[in-house]
Each structure stands twice: as structure tokens, then as C-alpha cells.
């Protein structure tokens, strides 16, 4: 997993970039209705969301699947002035905006903020409706890529994306393979009362924050071997998983609040929700986090109990897990879940090896 923001710009390019930056600053400073200027990608925590995660495009998708692309685009253009309804990532985006507002209040000149980019496969003509909808809800999204069908991977890299959310598992898998933290979002079937003052992010441990090395042992050798192994290697840090860098980015922003004495009032809270048990295999996880210099606010060891009820209490804006049956369980109880298609867990369903590849929508 690459580090957060390598800065490798060549000198000549850098001066061109600075000119563009200055021109953008001038543009935003001169706007009649003040809108916060988006930060430089290298300073920001960039979250890329697809149009189908940001908005509810289920009905429109049906038009596309049943009547083809041309009809779909025409339909969207015809309904351009009707705002779309919020999607699965909408509460998450609002929570990010709230954190930004708090950060700007404490650090008015800092660019260490969340930058939300709309990264969609949609045709640019559909884009007008998307922009109108963004304006309708007052979302601070100024950057977007409407690739008209082309792969978003190159653009994700160009924006130094820290997290990519999509409904398309193929794109998410591709992003993870390219070293970009990504997850496939699922809509909860019930509505939860989410916090609007605090961003709450829940992570599974193995194959999400950590590599799937231990999960391989469980799947191939069973739980007893797994416990022995974890106890034996308690002091050896686990390798990192696809979302470790995102947790790191959140931690960096959290520390900015702590530095201003806002720990109790911090608008970011992180949770570890793992099937590991505290007694037998939990220590290694906590020690690994410590060795990485990362903090997690609450670590919940379920010892195999279902995650759904606990997540219902936590009410995260997003919950990352690598195993679909955890995702489904959480979704049924109203949690906004995001599947991380990484590691050995993709080849199994509820503990049994899947014979053929899992079909996605």
C-alpha cells in the first residue's frame, strides 16, 4: 500500500501547477456567493464517490438496462432540473463536510481537509443533472470526472485518491489491485438515525485494516490453529490491509483537533469491529496498530458473534468489511456497509469454499 501523498512533481511542471493553482484561487475568491476553494490534492484527504453512491439512481439504472444508453441519457437530460434523491454515500459526504467546517474554523489557512471528488462513468450530458442535484443539497463538491465509460483508475491516481466508493465491484476490485483504498457500497434496508455532528467510521480488522494472512490460517487450518498462531506471533505486527492508509489519514485529521484541545468534542470517531476475541487473538491487533502509530477510538471484539446488532448501536456513516455475509447482516439491520473485495474471504461464503467466482450485480 503506497504512502498517503508522495510529492513527486518535476520543477517545470510545478511552476505550471502553481499558475493553475493561482488562477483557481483567483476564480474562487471572485465568486459572488462564497464557496470554499478546494484544497490541493497533495494536501487533502481525497474521497472519490461515484454518482450511484452519492445519489439514488436505481430507477434511472433500470431505464439504462431496459432501454439502452441513448434513451437513458435522453431521460436524464429531460429530468435535468429534478434533483436526485440521496444515495448510500450521502450521509458520509455530509459528515465529511461537517468535519471540514470544524477544521476550517480551527485552522483557517490549512489545506488538510477532505476533498470530495465525483468520479463517475456517466456521460457528461447526465452530468448536468448531477451538478444540479449537488447544488440542490449544497454539497461542497467542486471537482469531478465524468469519464463517459472509460475506466476511472487513471483519474483516481491523478487526484491522489485516499478512498474510492462505488456500486460497481469490478471497478472497486481494480482500484484495490492498483493500491487505492476502495469499497463497494450497499444501501441499508432500514433508516438509521445518524449523527450529524460526528463522522463515525467502522472497520473490520482482518483483510481490511490488516492483511488477510491470519484469515488464510482460519480458512485453511481452522480456528484452533489460528488462536495458537496469533498468540505465538502476538508481538509481530500484521501486514497492512487496503484500508490502513485511510485510517491513517483520519488519524492525522483527528490529531489536529486534539492539538486544539478538542479531543472530547472531536468530529471524527473510528471503530474496530472484529470477529476476533479479545482474550485469544485481540492483543496482536492492538499491538499492530500501536506499532503503526495509529489510534482507533473503540475496539470491539465480538469473538464470532454477529456484527449487525452492535453496528446498529454504533450507527457509523460507513462500515468496511471484506466478507459479504457480514455486509448483508449489517445492511439488514440498517447499517451503511461497504464491501472491500480483498483477500481470501472473496473465495469463501460463510466458511465454505465457493466453487465458482461470486457473481456481482
Amino acid at each position: 500500500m503506497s504512502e498517503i501523498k508522495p510529492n513527486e512533481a518535476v520543477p517545470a511542471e510545478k511552476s505550471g501547477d502553481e499558475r493553475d493553482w493561482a488562477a483557481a484561487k483567483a476564480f474562487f475568491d471572485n465568486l459572488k456567493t462564497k464557496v470554499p476553494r478546494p484544497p490541493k490534492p497533495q494536501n487533502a484527504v481525497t474521497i472519490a464517490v461515484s454518482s450511484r453512491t452519492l445519489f439514488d439512481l436505481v430507477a434511472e439504472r433500470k431505464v439504462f438496462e431496459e432501454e439502452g444508453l441513448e434513451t437513458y441519457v435522453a431521460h436524464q437530460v429531460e429530468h435535468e432540473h429534478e434533483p436526485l434523491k440521496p444515495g448510500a454515500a450521502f450521509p458520509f459526504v455530509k459528515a465529511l463536510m461537517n468535519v471540514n467546517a470544524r477544521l476550517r474554523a480551527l485552522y483557517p489557512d490549512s489545506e488538510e481537509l477532505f476533498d470530495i471528488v465525483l468520479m463517475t462513468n456517466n456521460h457528461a450530458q447526465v452530468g448536468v443533472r448531477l451538478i444540479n442535484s449537488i447544488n440542490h443539497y449544497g454539497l461542497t463538491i467542486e471537482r469531478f470526472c465524468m469519464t463517459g465509460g472509460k475506466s476511472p483508475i487513471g483519474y483516481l491516481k491523478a487526484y491522489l485518491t485516499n478512498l474510492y466508493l462505488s456500486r460497481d465491484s469490478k471497478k472497486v476490485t481494480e482500484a484495490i489491485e492498483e493500491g487505492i483504498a476502495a469499497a463497494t457500497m450497499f444501501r441499508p434496508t432500514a433508516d438509521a438515525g445518524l449523527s450529524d455532528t460526528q463522522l463515525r467510521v467502522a472497520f473490520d480488522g482482518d483483510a481490511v485494516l490488516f492483511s488477510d494472512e491470519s484469515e488464510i490460517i482460519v480458512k485453511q487450518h481452522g480456528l484452533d490453529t489460528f488462536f495458537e498462531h496469533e498468540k505465538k506471533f502476538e508481538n509481530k505486527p500484521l501486514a497492512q490491509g487496503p484500508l490502513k492508509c485511510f485510517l491513517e489519514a483520519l488519524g492525522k485529521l483527528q490529531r489536529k483537533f486534539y492539538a486544539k484541545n478538542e479531543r472530547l468534542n472531536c468530529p471524527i470517531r473510528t471503530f474496530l469491529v472484529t470477529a476476533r476475541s479479545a482474550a485469544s487473538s485481540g492483543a496482536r491487533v492492538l499491538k499492530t496498530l500501536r506499532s503503526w502509530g495509529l489510534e482507533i477510538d473503540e475496539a470491539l471484539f465480538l469473538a464470532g458473534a454477529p456484527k449487525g446488532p452492535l453496528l446498529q448501536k454504533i450507527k457509523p456513516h460507513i462500515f468496511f468489511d471484506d466478507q459479504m455475509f457480514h455486509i448483508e447482516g449489517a445492511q439488514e439491520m440498517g447499517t451503511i456497509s461497504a464491501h472491500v473485495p480483498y483477500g481470501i474471504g472473496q473465495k469463501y461464503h460463510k466458511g465454505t469454499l465457493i466453487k465458482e467466482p461470486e457473481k456481482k450485480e
Partner: protein
Amino acid sequence: MVSMVQNQDVQQKDLDHAVVVAVTSRALFESETEEDDGPAYRGGVAFPLLQALQRVNEHLLEKDPTESLLFDVVLMTTDRQQQQQSSGFMSSTRHHGLEVSRFCFSSEEDFVESLLKNNIHVFVTTDENEAFQANQKGVLSLLLDENSASCPSEQLRVLFCENSIIRPGSGPTSSSREAAQTFSSQLGKMRQKLETSHSPLCFTLVTLHGGKDRCCGALKALRSVGVSVDEAYCLAGAPRSPILSLLRPHFLLSDGCSGSED
């Protein structure tokens, strides 16, 4: 002295309706050194562009064999030295199966005149001075460089962007701006005849400095002149080269929203 020769191997286009693109021989062929296998010159930086133009024509004719809104390519030499190699260019064109309908031989003094006389809509060259001269007389010019060689050959990509980045230094004259607008609307009409996805002609809009509303405004402005943009990127000050290097456009045109000449 200017002379124009028709290529007998290629069907001539209806000049009342075609979009005429003149490409210099220096841009199309690497004629400094001869190729090892046979008498043909190797393709130059304009090669992918020509192949892309040809693909658009093929698709348009597939939809309607009587289509007259097609690209008409003229191979142009612009100096006396190149004139010596005229037969080499003609045979190389044949060798590569290029759809060049006419060969125009002129010199440094009279090439602009021949551009005007032959109603050239776009002039493609690798020579900055030539581009400047043509621009001054109101002919839309496209300056190619070594990056152009890596443009795709299976899709013609047209990029619309804020005025300021089109030609920093050699700003557009009002007549070349007019030529650009005509060209845009001709392309727009062509695009309408082609399929929505996997089209051989693709319009991309890039907003470098402004925010989403600037970009949205440009989308609508282009729509109003018959250009339906396929891809849109709003950078809002983010570094441009990572994105532009992915887009690899053949043509760079103004987005028509030149309210703020920043």
C-alpha cells in the same frame, strides 16, 4: 508556385459539405531518413490523427453511404525543399493506404494563400511559425509535437477548454475564432450522426481553474451550439498534467465560455 494534384486512388469528397483538413508533409511523414523496407516514408506525429479521421469517415459512411459530411484530407507541402520529395509523399500515402484526396505543393511564401484559396478548415503542422501565420489570416491551425504521436488512432478526441490554455502567446484572432466555431459546429453535426458509446469521435470538456458551475455552464453553452460533450473533467485548480496525459486529445478548442480571459 502552387499546384494541386488529385489522388486517383481515393474517392474525392463533396467539397461543399466536407470538413477539409490540410496536413503538412513534415507532420505526416518522417521524410528525413528513408525506411529500410521499400520506398515509403515512416509515419510522423500526425499519423494517429489521420487514422482517427479515417475511422470517423468509415463509421459515417457505414451509417449512410451517401454521407457528404466527411473529413477531406489534403497533404500539403509548405516549402521548396519538401516539394522535391513530392513523388515520395504520393507513393508513401499509397503505401500506408492513407485517405488523402489531394496533394498540394506550395512554398513558404504562398502556402497561406493556398490554404485560403482551397477553403481549408483546419491546418495541421509541426511548425510554430506556419501555425502563427495561418492563424493570423483566420485559418484554424493545430500545432502538433512529439506528444501527438501517442494520441489514439482509433478515436478522434477533441478537447474543449478555457481560452487561456489554447494558445498561450499566439492568441486567437477574431477570424480564427470564427473558424474555430465553424469547425466545432461541423464536428457537432458529425457527432450527432454517430453512436453514443464507443464512438470514433469523442468530445471532452476540461475546466482547469473554475468550479463545477463554470463547467456546467460550459456544458450547456456547447450544447447550445450543437456540441454534445461526452466526457467532462472539472479540476478546480488541481494539477492539469496527470489528467491531460490521460486524455490525449488530437484537437484543442475553446469551450466557448470566454467570459473570463484569465
